[in-house]
């Protein structure tokens, strides 16, 4: 007979706190199948937390970065400034001279509503 331990699979558990929150990795667990993994995920990680959604994924089905790949990620060149707003800070002063405000992230993200006609 096969060893009992061969029955178990490692599942990674993810959950979402609210509809605006990203799916977040919680931890992993051992379970004999997906349904049990789902049940144990709720028992193990959601006893108190506010949770609106749960995913369980068999660990073997995840292509993770290898140790080497992760190391090289942290050693990436710090040359991404041209992709960020970092170089455009001088605009605040320019707009100020023209008596206008800067349309920064905080301002733009606040434009949820426009005036109804």
């Amino acid at each position: 007979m096969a060893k009992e331990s061969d029955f178990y699979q490692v599942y990674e558990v993810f959950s979402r706190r609210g509809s605006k929150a990203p799916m977040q990795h919680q931890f992993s667990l051992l379970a004999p199948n997906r349904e049990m993994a789902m049940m144990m995920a709720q028992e193990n990680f959601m006893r108190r937390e506010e949770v609106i959604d749960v995913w369980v994924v068999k660990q073997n089905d995840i292509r993770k970065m290898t140790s080497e790949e992760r190391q090289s990620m942290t050693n990436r060149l710090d040359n991404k400034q041209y992709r960020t707003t970092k170089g455009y800070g001088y605009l605040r002063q320019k707009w100020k001279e023209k008596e206008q405000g800067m349309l920064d992230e905080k301002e733009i993200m606040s434009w949820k509503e426009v005036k109804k006609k």
Partner: protein
Amino acid sequence: MYNYVEDGDSKTTAYVEHDQAKYDAFMARIEAGDKIEADDWMPEDYRQALIKLISMHGISEIMGALPEKEWVPKAPTLRRKLGIMAKVQDEMGHGQLLLRVAEDLMKPYGKTRENLMEDLLNKDLKFHNVFHMPTKTWADAGMVGWLVDGAAIISQTNMLDASYGPYQRALQRICQEEVFHAQHGESIIMALAEGNDYQRDILQESLNRWWPSLLMFFGPASAETTGSSKQDIMIKYKIRKSTNEELRQAFLSKYMPRVFSLGLTVPDETIHYDENEEKWIYKQPDWEEFKQIIRGNGPRSKERLRIREIAYENNRWVRQALATEPVGV
């Protein structure tokens, strides 16, 4: 969490021998506060110290639920019953988190959770001295939450910055839940301390009984006492920050004023804080007894292991029945 082979295949490869360049890079990473993951290269003694620590911690959580669950049917009110039930469930949950972390570390040796359970039943895997002790009165249920968990919180928070990523992440979750356990214990203690003569008597009697176990909890100050100690290697590899004695001193500083404020005493008339030496002076517990207890010769060692064994055997058919995917899913 592990990737010994490219592309996420979980096949195990043989463990890599000592390599000075890799060792230096590893030390540089942990000195810089980087977290080591399960599939990163790590020195053999680091892996072994972690396996020993985390499997012992995980199994202790599970064995610790056993003396507490005895009080679920005997809790004096519904609120207390719900509280202690939630705590017992938390302890089992902590055990599951920690065993998962230990399993990933044991993978290169081909060991699994099943092996850990066998080691436990063979007494090769030790669990915390406090969980070999009997609980006799309801005051013990409070004492376990207040001072036993208090001691555990002191030693676990000391590892919140541990260099091993998975353990450190498990500890964040565990320590947050321990706050609930500590206050659950305090609430029971407070009710007894402010209760009638009988209640105060069982509280004092409980503390007297638990006192040596609480001192022993942190382990001996040096390896000379019991012949072996992993504390130096744990500090070198930034798994924990403080020595056994530093942790015991921190425990005494945090909890002795509270013990005295409740009108309780401890069975050591010599205990006091020495202002000049800036440390607590106390009578050493019997370290020979400590050795016997953790070897599995404590007052309740056999019974608790038997409960674990019966649960494991009785539930075997459930594990086997669940081993296949349900039909129609």
